[in-house]
């Protein structure tokens, strides 16, 4: 018997003491972790609707969603990375770089070329991270911390350390196009989130992602190429970052190498608050979406109610701490 956690099986040993009655479902900590954010988000939504007349309006709600586009796309891809047992600290830098490349190429080659190539560049950046982590087995924290510095530098080089204003018309038009009364960027976010959810829940690759993060050795012994899976996850993360970056640049009509620094950690915050385990192997896209909007609603509520931004920061940080604490506690309970 290797650990105390190994216990005998009650149903297979009829002579043994009768198994304990299962604990009532509402005392299970995992349940708290599983659905508490969802509940809190719903409650917050109701409270804000009741206290602020300007909250429950189409403009405000669409605005909230649209403001989350960049962060949401990155956090959805980041969910895959974290479930696979890795971490991507370079998303903010890739985001800025994607915007800069898109803007620069839009000026030189044309608007559609700029946007498409700006987005595709993310594949290359992600692949660099993926090869470093998946094949050279460099610790993901260090690998992406280092690559973030490189990508940040590339952004400065390409933009020549200044804002790139896109002169061609069409760049900004693309960023503010609406479809059925909703911004195209919002539609892209929704489509991307659905694609990531589908990938995670319904495909072989999704299963492999969970297995690699949940038990790397078991995955390897099942014939899963763990390094390959991790590499692909980073490619997706890189692509998501440039997608978000290019959309943002198109929105404001400017490529700016200094944006996105806060995105990296905000994405982790949304993922963790949603209940995806920071240790890998557990989590879901819907959780990240819930976490994202929970934090966004707090933000929006504070604005509508006129609370000082200083307090927002304190509250947000506390929420993240509590979420991570619940995760740690839930893990200890289920040993």
């Amino acid at each position, binding site marked *: *018997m*290797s650990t*105390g956690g190994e216990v*005998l*099986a*009650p149903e297979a040993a009829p002579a043994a003491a009768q198994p304990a009655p299962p604990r009532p479902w509402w005392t299970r900590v995992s349940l708290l972790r599983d659905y508490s954010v969802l509940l809190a988000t719903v409650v917050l939504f109701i409270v804000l609707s009741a206290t602020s007349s300007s909250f429950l309006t189409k403009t405000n709600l669409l605005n909230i969603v649209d403001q989350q586009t960049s962060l949401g796309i990155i956090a959805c891809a980041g969910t895959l990375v974290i479930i696979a047992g890795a971490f991507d600290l370079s998303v903010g830098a890739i985001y800025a770089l994607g915007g800069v490349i898109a803007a620069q190429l839009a000026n030189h080659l044309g608007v559609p070329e700029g946007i498409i190539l700006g987005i595709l560049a993310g594949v290359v950046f992600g692949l660099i991270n993926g090869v470093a982590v998946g094949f050279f087995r460099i610790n993901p924290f260090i690998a992406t911390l280092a690559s973030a510095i490189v990508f940040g530098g590339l952004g400065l080089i390409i933009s020549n350390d200044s804002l790139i204003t896109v002169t061609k018309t069409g760049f900004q038009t693309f960023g503010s196009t609406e479809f059925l009364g909703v911004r195209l960027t919002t539609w892209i976010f929704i489509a991307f989130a659905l694609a990531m959810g589908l990938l995670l829940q319904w*495909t072989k690759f999704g299963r492999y992602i969970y297995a690699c993060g949940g038990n790397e050795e078991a995955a390897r012994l*099942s014939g899963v190429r763990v390094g390959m899976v991790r590499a692909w996850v980073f490619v997706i993360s890189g692509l998501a970052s440039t997608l978000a970056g290019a959309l943002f640049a198109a929105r404001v009509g400017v490529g700016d190498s200094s944006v996105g620094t806060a995105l990296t950690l905000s994405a982790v915050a949304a993922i963790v608050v949603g209940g995806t385990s920071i240790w890998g192997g557990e989590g879901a896209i819907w959780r990240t979406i819930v976490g994202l909007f929970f934090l966004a609603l707090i933000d929006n509520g504070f604005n509508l109610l006129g609370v000082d931004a200083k307090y927002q920061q304190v509250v947000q940080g506390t929420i993240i701490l509590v979420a991570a604490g619940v995760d740690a506690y839930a893990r200890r309970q289920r040993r």
Partner: protein
Amino acid sequence: MSAFLELRDVSKRFGGVLALDDISIAIARGGVHGLVGENGAGKSTLGKIIAGEYKPDAGELLLEGEAVHYARPREALAQGITYVAQELSLVPARSVFENVLLGSERTRFGFLRDGLARERYDEAAERLGFGLDPRMLVGRLSVADQQKVELMRAIARRARMIVMDEPTAALSPHETERLLEVVRRLAAGGTTIVFVSHFLREVLSVCDDVTVLKDGRHVMTVPAATTTADQLVVAMIGRQLEGSYPEKQMPASDSPIVFKASGVRLPRATAGIDLEVRRGEILGLAGLVGSGRTELCRALFGLERSAGEFHVDGEPRSLSSPREAIAAGIAMLPESRRDQGLVMRRPIRDNVTLAHLDRFGAGGFIRRGDERAAVGEVLAQVGVDSGRNQGNVVNLSGGNQQRVLFAKWLLDTPKLLIADEPTRGVDVGAKRAIYDLLVQLAAKGMAIILVSSEVEEVLGLAHRVAVMRHGQIVGELRGPDIGKEAVMRVAFGSDAASAAA
């Protein structure tokens, strides 16, 4: 002798399982008290409660007659009770000296006082009767020497009681003998020892009293001098050993060779290994811990960098990764299902199909209906009630986890099944079910390589036993009745046969 520590009505529950049920025992001062029982009987749990690693759910502990309630190891440590775990808790990159003094450093104004520490170190070395180079890095020591470092640490912490959990599991017979010497010496010096082990001969040779646990309950506590290994086994199992294995059905002698390996060179071995397994045959691999059994299994599954040629059904095959091994029709149940076998926090379904998702995939998407049907079928085959057992694998009993692992590989009937310790951490009833399953699979024509550190298990199931020592197969025994003595004689090298565990 008065009782140093007394346990009264101690119970401990893990989730829905009662791991310890109303245990009351007294441990004499300055003696060696053995805790024996099968895997899952609760002996490690009890050891951990004594050492403050676990908190009992009910009952109390009396230390020298006074009730103590320690909730964590620190508090037990303050009372002079230390725990030497099966997995040693040393800092490999630091020296022996630092490891020994870890947690009992003396400082003045925050600076270490090495002089005082050195005194303590020397004192510990003297109490234990051996010397180790204090500057040596612990990571470079053998397991046996690391164990000594743990003991020195316990002494340096002024331990009055040391709980040792399976201290000899990773040691050679010679090292074991040395360790038992040390244990006797410590006890003679007044330290109370709790000795958790499943090696009965060692327990009988070193302990004053022996407590037998079965299914979390206290069966008996007897002076070691008045009992025998056979009596202990009967008490542990609750019935005679005979009849606990299914009847052997020998494979036909002209049965074709399914798997053949030649010249497999394990790390540190001086010569290669040749072996072959026939259709329907169970080949047992016996040998002591460290003899290379697990390494051989890993090599056959593409997990060790080892030279060697492999033939599956007569076709030459490269087995340099698990992917290739799986493609060749080889399956492996790894030694540790928790660390290597299962993704504990995922559902049964995901675990069962992980290695064979291609079967349910079209363009990367999983056809859930097909998957559900196949999983239900294979779970029924291994005897897991998929209706009652939902949710994540982590919530299953050890026996059911092992069955899920079987199901995973039976999903795509392999030609060769390598089962490394298939009944580890599984209780008696579930063990028998796994034996039946292995025999059934062989009867259906699967070739099986079985590894177990319980020699009885290998003898009870295998048609042929290959005995390993120092990374090589040093003997082979076959026939329906292979004796344990014979196997152990080969495993130890004949002269040491008397030390057989």
